[in-house]
C-alpha cells in the first residue's frame, strides 16, 4: 500500500506531429492532467524521457515544465530508464511522496521521434543496450533480441508466427476504438503475416512504431478514487548471452512478484492490464512472467482470445505500444492514463466494472521493469 493517489491524467494524441515541438506536446499533457486534478499546488516534477538529448538536442525538461507552467522554484528532474523512463518517473514521484518530502507531484513522459530518420532512431535506441560487449559488436539489435527469443519460443512450444500475428491483431483492434491511438486503420491476420520482415520471425506489425506524444499524471497523498496500491521496480541482464533462461525476462518477473507482494494481491485478482508490448513477442513473455498464464503457454491464451478486451484477462485495451504507439518516455505514463480511465469507467474498450489494474513498463532488452497496481477505492 503506498497511500498515494492519482488525481489527474492527461495525454496528447499519439502519432506523427512534425509541426508540434517536444515542449508543446509535454506542456499539453501536463496542463490536461493539472486541470483534471483541479489545479492543485505541485511540489515537484518528474519527466520520463529517453532520447531528447540525442536526437532532439533538448534536456532540462523538468525545469521547462516548472517554468512554463508557473509552478514556482520547485525541484524537478528528468528520469531516463530507456523505454521504462515513464514508469520509473512515476515511481520516483511516488517515492518522493512516501519520503514525506512532497504532498503532490506532477509526473510526465514525452518523446519526439518522427522528425528523425529510422536509421538514426535505431542507432539512438541502441544506446539502451550494453554497447561495450561482443554481443553488440556481433550486430544484435533490439528487434533482433526479440527475434532470437521468438525463434526459441516456437522451437520449445506449439506456437508459431501466427500466434504473434493474432496478438498484434488484437492490439490493433483495441486501437481502432481509442481516439488517441497512432494506428486506427483496420488490418487482417494475412496482412500482418505477409508484412516486410524486420528480424526473422518478426515482421513490421510485430514491432512498435516510432511515435511523437506525451502523457502526464498528478499524484498526491491526498485521497482520490484511484489508489496506487503498489509500485515495484527490478533490473535484469543487459545482455542476451547472460540470460539463464532465454524465455524468461527476470526484471518483469521480479517487478511483478514484488508488486503483488506489496499490494497483497495475485495475478488472478487483476481485472485489466497494460503490458509493455514493444514487440508482439514481449507481450507473449510478459503475460507468462506476470503469472497470468503458465510459462510457455501464453500462446494458448492468445489463441483462445483470453487477452482481448472481451476476454477474462484483458491486456492492452489501449492498443498497446504496437498500435496506440510508443513515444518512448511517454509510454509508461500513458499506460497509467489508460488504466485510470478503465477504473473511472470511461476508457476506450471499457471492461466491465474493473477494481484492480496492473501496468508493466520495460526498458532495454530486460534491463529495467516497473510494475504499478492501481485500485478503485
Amino acid at each position, binding site marked *: 500500500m503506498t497511500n498515494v493517489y492519482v488525481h489527474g491524467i492527461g495525454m496528447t494524441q499519439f502519432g506523427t506531429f512534425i509541426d508540434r515541438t517536444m515542449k508543446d506536446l509535454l506542456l499539453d499533457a501536463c496542463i490536461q492532467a493539472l486541470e483534471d486534478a483541479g489545479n492543485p499546488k505541485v511540489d515537484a516534477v518528474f519527466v520520463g524521457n529517453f532520447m531528447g538529448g540525442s536526437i532532439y538536442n533538448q534536456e532540462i525538461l523538468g525545469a521547462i515544465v516548472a517554468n512554463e507552467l508557473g509552478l514556482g522554484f520547485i525541484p524537478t528532474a528528468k528520469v531516463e530508464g530507456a523505454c521504462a523512463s515513464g514508469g520509473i518517473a512515476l515511481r520516483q514521484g511516488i517515492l518522493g511522496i512516501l519520503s514525506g518530502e512532497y504532498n503532490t507531484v506532477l509526473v510526465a513522459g514525452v518523446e519526439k521521434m518522427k522528425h528523425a530518420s529510422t536509421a538514426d532512431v535505431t542507432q539512438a535506441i541502441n544506446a539502451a543496450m550494453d554497447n561495450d560487449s561482443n554481443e553488440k559488436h556481433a550486430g*544484435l539489435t533490439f528487434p*533482433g533480441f526479440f527475434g532470437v527469443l521468438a525463434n*526459441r519460443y516456437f522451437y520449445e512450444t506449439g506456437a508459431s508466427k501466427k500466434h504473434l500475428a493474432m496478438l498484434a491483431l488484437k492490439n490493433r483492434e483495441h486501437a481502432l476504438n481509442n481516439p488517441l491511438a497512432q494506428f486506427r486503420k483496420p488490418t487482417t491476420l494475412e496482412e500482418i503475416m505477409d508484412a516486410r520482415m524486420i528480424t526473422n520471425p518478426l515482421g513490421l506489425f510485430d514491432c512498435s512504431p516510432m511515435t511523437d506524444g506525451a502523457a502526464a499524471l498528478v499524484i498526491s497523498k491526498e485521497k482520490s478514487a484511484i489508489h496506487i496500491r503498489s509500485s515495484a521496480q527490478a533490473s535484469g541482464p543487459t*545482455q542476451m548471452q547472460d540470460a539463464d533462461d532465454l524465455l524468461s525476462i527476470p526484471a518483469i518477473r521480479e517487478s511483478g512478484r514484488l508488486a503483488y507482494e506489496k499490494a497483497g494481491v495475485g495475478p488472478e485478482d487483476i481485472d485489466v492490464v497494460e503490458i509493455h508490448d514493444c514487440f508482439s513477442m514481449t507481450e507473449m513473455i510478459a503475460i507468462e512472467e506476470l503469472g497470468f498464464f503458465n510459462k510457455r503457454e501464453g500462446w494458448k491464451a492468445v489463441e483462445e482470445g483470453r487477452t482481448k478486451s472481451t476476454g477474462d484477462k484483458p491486456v492492452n485495451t489501449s492498443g498497446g505500444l504496437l498500435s496506440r504507439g510508443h513515444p518512448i518516455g511517454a509510454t509508461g505514463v500513458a499506460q497509467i492514463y489508460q488504466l485510470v480511465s478503465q477504473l473511472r469507467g470511461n476508457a476506450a474498450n471499457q471492461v466491465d466494472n474493473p477494481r484492480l489494474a496492473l501496468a508493466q513498463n520495460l526498458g532495454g532488452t530486460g534491463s529495467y521493469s516497473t510494475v504499478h497496481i492501481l485500485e478503485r477505492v
Partner: protein
Amino acid sequence: MKVFQCNSCDYQSISNKYVCPKCLKGKLEELEVPSTGTVYSFTDIHVAPSEFADIAPYTVALVQLDEAKGKVTVRVNEPVQIGDKVELENVEKGAYLYKKI
C-alpha cells in the same frame, strides 16, 4: 574461447562480473574452452542500424558452447537453424564470427 566460471556455484558467463550474480558471493575465474557449439536460437537482421546497414541482412545466433554451461552471441556467415553445429572462424572488431561445421 574464454569463459568465466564462478568458484562457488555453477554460474558461468562469457563476460566477467565483480561478484557472481547467481550465488552473490563467488568470484569468477577465467576458463579456456573450445569454441565449438550448437545454435540455441537465431535471427536474420533485415533492418539494421546505420553501422551494420552495409552487411544486412545478416544472421546473429545465440550459441550454446559444447564444453561449457555458458552461451555466446555471435554473427554467422550464413543462415542457420536451431541445432546446427558451429565454430569460431574469426574475431573481428570485437565480434565473434562463426561458421557452420
